[in-house]
C-alpha cells in the first residue's frame, strides 16, 4: 500500500461524487437525446442536490436521517477500500451494508409506498448479490488474490477468461443503476406505480444524501467495470468501461419495467448461465 493508492482513495472521497454527478448528468442528457429532446444541462444533478439543501426537510422519524448517514458512510467506505487497492470482497460487503441502510431508512418512515419500495429493493439485492459474489470469486481465481491492486496488475487475458462473468455483471449493473427493466424499487422517471418507491418519504437534505450516495455508487460501479479491463492500462480500459456504462442508458430507454418475479428469475438464470458456468470453466482455461 503506497502513497499512490492512498492518493487515489482520498481522491475518490473528494472527487468521486463529482464524477458520479457528471455520469448522472450525461446519462440524463443521453436519455433526452434518445427521445429527441435537448435535455437538461450537464450539471443538472448538482443543481438538484444544491436545491434540495435549500428546501425544508420533512422528517417522519429522526431515525431516517441516521440510517441515511449510515448509507452514505458505508458507500464511501466501500469505494475507499476499492480505490485503495484493498480487498474486493470487503468493498462488496460494505456496498451491501450500505444498501441495507437505505432500505432501513425507507422502512422507518412507515409509509406504504416506501415499504413496498424497500421490500422490492431487498428483493433486487437477493437477485444481484450472488452475481456480485461470483464477480469477486472470478477475479480471485484469475488473479489469485482478492486484492484490487493485484487484480489491476493481473493478466491481460483476464477479461477473456471472465467473459461470461462480465456479461452477468453487465446484467446486474442495470439493477444496481436502477435502470429499466429493473427499476422496481425506485425509478429516475417521474411516474411509476410506487410514486417514488424507496425515496417517497425522504425530502430536502435527506433526499440530497441519497443522491450524493448514488453519485458515489456510480463511481464505484464504474470502478468495478473498469477492473475487468484494468490490466490493459487506463487509456484503453477507461473508454471501454465508459462505453459499457452508458450502454445501460440505451437499455433503460428501450425496455419496459418487469415484474419482480420475472426479474428475480431472469437474474438468477443469467447468474447461473454466465456466472456459474464461467466459474466452473475457469480451471480449464487458466
Amino acid at each position, binding site marked *: 500500500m503506497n502513497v499512490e493508492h492512498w492518493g487515489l482513495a482520498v481522491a475518490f472521497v473528494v472527487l468521486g461524487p463529482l464524477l458520479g454527478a457528471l455520469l448522472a448528468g450525461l446519462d440524463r442528457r443521453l436519455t433526452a437525446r434518445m427521445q429527441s429532446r435537448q*435535455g437538461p444541462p450537464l450539471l443538472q444533478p448538482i443543481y438538484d442536490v444544491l436545491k434540495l439543501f435549500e428546501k425544508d426537510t420533512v422528517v417522519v422519524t429522526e431515525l431516517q436521517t441516521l440510517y441515511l448517514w449510515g448509507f452514505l458512510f458505508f458507500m464511501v467506505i466501500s469505494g475507499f477500500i476499492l480505490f485503495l487497492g484493498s480487498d474486493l470482497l470487503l468493498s462488496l460487503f460494505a456496498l451491501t451494508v450500505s444498501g441495507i441502510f437505505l432500505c432501513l431508512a425507507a422502512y422507518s418512515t412507515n409509509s406504504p409506498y416506501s415499504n413496498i419500495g424497500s421490500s422490492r429493493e431487498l428483493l433486487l439485492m437477493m437477485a444481484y448479490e450472488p452475481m456480485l459474489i461470483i464477480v469477486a470469486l472470478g477475479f480471485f481465481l484469475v488473479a489469485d488474490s482478492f486484492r484490487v491492486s493485484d487484480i489491476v496488475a493481473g493478466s491481460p487475458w483476464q477479461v477473456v477468461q471472465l467473459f461470461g462473468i462480465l456479461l452477468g455483471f453487465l446484467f446486474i449493473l442495470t439493477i444496481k443503476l436502477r435502470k429499466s427493466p429493473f427499476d422496481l424499487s425506485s425509478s429516475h422517471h417521474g411516474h411509476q406505480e410506487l410514486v417514488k418507491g424507496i425515496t417517497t418519504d425522504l425530502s430536502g437534505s435527506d433526499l440530497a444524501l441519497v443522491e450524493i450516495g448514488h453519485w458515489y455508487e456510480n463511481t464505484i460501479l464504474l470502478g468495478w467495470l473498469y477492473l475487468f479491463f484494468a490490466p490493459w492500462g487506463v487509456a484503453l480500459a477507461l473508454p471501454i468501461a465508459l462505453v459499457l456504462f452508458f450502454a445501460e442508458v440505451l437499455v433503460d430507454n428501450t425496455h419496459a419495467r418487469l415484474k419482480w418475479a420475472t426479474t428475480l428469475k431472469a437474474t438468477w438464470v443469467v447468474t447461473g448461465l454466465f456466472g456459474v458456468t464461467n466459474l466452473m470453466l475457469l480451471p480449464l482455461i487458466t
Partner: protein
Amino acid sequence: MSFLKKSPWILHYAATSCNGCDIELLACLTPLYDVERFGIVNTGNPKHADIFLVTGSVNEESRKVVENLYAQMPDPKAVVAIGACALSGGIFRDAYNVYGGIDQVIPVDVYVPGCAARPESIIDGIVQALAILEERARDRKRQRKVVAS
C-alpha cells in the same frame, strides 16, 4: 442565487378538470417543448415537489386531495392554477358541485388562463412562479436563521 430556479420539480394534480388542460400540461414534457431543458421534472411526489400545478374547478372530493398535497409539500413552495376552470370555475362555474377556482381552497401564486391553456403559457406560468419561489427561499433562509439564534 437560489438553486430553486435551476431545478424546479413540479407536482401535477387534476382537480376535477376535463383533462384538456392536463394534456396540454403533459405536452410540455414532450420533445416539442421539453421543459427538462430548464431542469423541470414532473415528480408525482408531493414531498419532492417545489411547484404545485393544479387544473380543474375543484369539487368536494378533490378539495381534500388538493389540501392534502399542498400540506405535504415542504417549504419553499408555489402554486400555479392552470386553465379557466382552475381560475374561476370556467364553464362549470354555475354547477352546484364545484368550488369554482383553486384559490377557494389553497393560496394560488400564478394564474394561467386559457381553455385549454396553451403549453407556452403554462411554461410561462412556471417561469413566473420561479421568481416567487426564489423570494420565498430567501425569506425561508432568514426564518431559519431567526429560529436558530
